[in-house]
């Protein structure tokens, strides 16, 4: 069984890492729609893929957050990427398989993945 002693050790380790990372958040946000239609369309695994990929690539400046209805059910799961000083980019019908590319191209290199955007889906 996972023990409390283990949790205490992880706490101490996390505390050290946190002081190193401090102040790294720059306001970049990955916003996942978590209304009923978003959840039914597969938002939960998409969100998990984003947190895993962002942890793997040590993108401490990016926060993954949720929102309710975005008002475009037909494009759920919807993910918005909001970076400071840039226009918001809205991705639609996102699957876990698409996440690595969005993280690499958009979050790391600053190039939105045009083909995954809602704007492209509406064409």
């Amino acid at each position, binding site marked *: 069984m996972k023990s409390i002693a283990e*949790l205490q050790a992880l706490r101490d380790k996390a505390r050290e890492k946190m002081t190193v990372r401090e102040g790294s958040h720059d306001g970049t946000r990955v916003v996942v729609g978590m209304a*009923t*239609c978003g*959840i*039914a369309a597969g938002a*939960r695994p998409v969100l998990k893929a984003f947190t895993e990929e962002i942890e793997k690539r040590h993108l401490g400046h990016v926060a*993954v957050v949720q929102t309710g209805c975005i008002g475009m059910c037909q494009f759920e799961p919807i993910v918005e990427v909001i970076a400071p000083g840039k226009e918001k980019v809205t991705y639609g019908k996102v699957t876990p398989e698409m996440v690595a590319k969005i993280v690499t191209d958009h979050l790391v290199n600053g190039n939105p993945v045009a083909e995954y955007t809602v704007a492209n889906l509406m064409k």
Partner: protein
Amino acid sequence: MRELSLNVLDIAQNSIAAAATLVTIEIEEAMGMLTIRIGDNGRGMTNEQLEQIRDPFYTTRKTRRVGMGIPLFRMAAEMAGGSLAIESEVGVGTTVTARFGLDHIDRMPLGDMVGTMDTLIRLNPGIDFLYRHTVDERSFELDTRSLREVLDGVPLSEPDIMDWIDANLTEGIQSLGSNA
């Protein structure tokens, strides 16, 4: 919804939207029934709202008229020989209880409750969650309030801490021998 754990995630979103600071999720398997209860200490509903919520075309949201979350959960329960009940009091909170025939062929599987709890805990740093799962007389519980005491200011959402929480939930639920 393909699994009931997704309904749980969705119904818990209502609690979060109602500004709850504590959300309790209870799963109980006993005497041929599966009971899922989501309780919160959020703003609650008036009797009028409670009546309207029985009407599937009701929502207080402005962007869209139809609320889907509760009707879908009710349908899943009724399809499986069960029912859904809502208790609520303004300023006190709300409890949604769904019952299912455990062995009913039309019952959706409970599915990935670890994934649902992980998502809820990770995304809602300001909210506490209590998960309690009971199978017959065996019981498992995870309470973020006691975890926070141990963590002493370190956020639950730290990757290593979340991994510990997921492993704890996985082991705990497995040890119950759940049939859901």
